């Protein structure tokens, strides 16, 4: 119990990633026509949606992970995993 109180919550990191994530989503929604046109071309352009997915998952995934930690929802502490 004391461990969770002592350990600092990653509020700064969460906010930083949250801002970048919001910016990415704002860009996605504001540039819809452009994205549809370029990403829909197919062929070698197939790399674009894949790279985009990786970038979004890294930024937004880091944000959502920290979000639950900051909310106080973390994995059970003592539970031993099955070997």
């Amino acid at each position: 119990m004391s461990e969770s109180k002592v350990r600092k919550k990653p509020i700064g990191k969460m906010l930083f990633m949250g801002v970048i994530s919001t910016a990415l989503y704002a860009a996605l929604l504001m540039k819809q026509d452009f994205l549809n046109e370029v990403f829909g071309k197919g062929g070698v352009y197939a790399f674009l949606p894949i790279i985009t997915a990786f970038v979004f998952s890294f930024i937004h995934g880091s944000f959502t992970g920290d979000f639950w930690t900051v909310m106080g929802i973390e994995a059970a502490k003592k539970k031993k995993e099955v070997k």
Partner: protein
Amino acid sequence: MHDIAQAASNFINLDTINIVYLFLVGFVGGLVSGFIGSGGAFVLTPAMMSMGVPGLVAVASNMCHKFPKALIGSIKRAKYGQVDVKLGIVLGISAEAGVLYGAHIQEGIKKSFGEAGSNLYVSAAFVVILAIVGGFVLLDAWKTKKSGNTNAEEKVTKLARWVQSVNIPGTMVYFKSLNAKVSVLFTIPLGFATGMLAATIAVGGFVGVPSMIYVLGAPSLMASATELVIAFVMGLGGSFKFAMSGLVDIRLAMIILAGSLFGIQLGAIGTTYVKPYMIKMVMGVIMVIVLFSRGLMVPVYMSQLGLIQEISESSAKLMKGVSFGIMIFALALGAFIVLKAMWQGRREQRLAAQEAFEHVK
């Protein structure tokens, strides 16, 4: 120019309601897949189609949200020591082959029997597989719950013990989740079947997870976590294939991902609070309910093919609506069980900590 216009027509206009809807379904789907390793796709694809997204774009966009989601989920669960990366990759590669073969069969059926024939094949596959596998998983979970022995370590099935005992020189690989060597001649067909199912009904995990548990002998927690690695490998390959044809609507994929990354983190955390049989329980419940949803559509497609008496358009529409409603119910119920089990687990842990504290005092 013509190509661009054609591609752009594949992509619908997004309004706020659609965005919120996709975000929420993504969240619930993510929550369930963080917990049982898969799920959500069976609701997401029809949900997108109901918004006017063409079928193939819906499948492609769903897949493009699946692999980054599975990546984040598997990283999270690897931190809890639940992932067998080697088993995930070995099964994932053979699953990829299964996806290609499954898609090929689908195309063949569509060519010979048309859209209704293809739909009937998909629904029939759903019903048969979910009835057998889902029924078995649910029964197993139910028996464990009834026995009151929910804390006992999971027993390796007789079949898995046999599979682990077979020694075929040159094909044996050690897997940490099984704590045994198993011949890849067993894992390849299992991965292939998972992929074929993923190509047919979009949820390979409904075969992947039970086969890891009952055929290979992996514990439920590790099987469901390793499924996320399979989903990543399969989803990455599949997304690239669809993206080559310009079928991925990146906006849809990323909006669903926005919700599902919140969900998958929560679902993964949830696995650390529950007893292993709960994984089977959630999976079994979802599979059996989805079975009824798809079963309802079988007569509709049969009438379209002229195999049975014609069903009026209004009745067919009603059945389609009810079928979709049941699917959403299945997902929501799964999410509810996960959240409830997690809440109970957290409460028990808090009480135990409090007790220990008072004891020391």
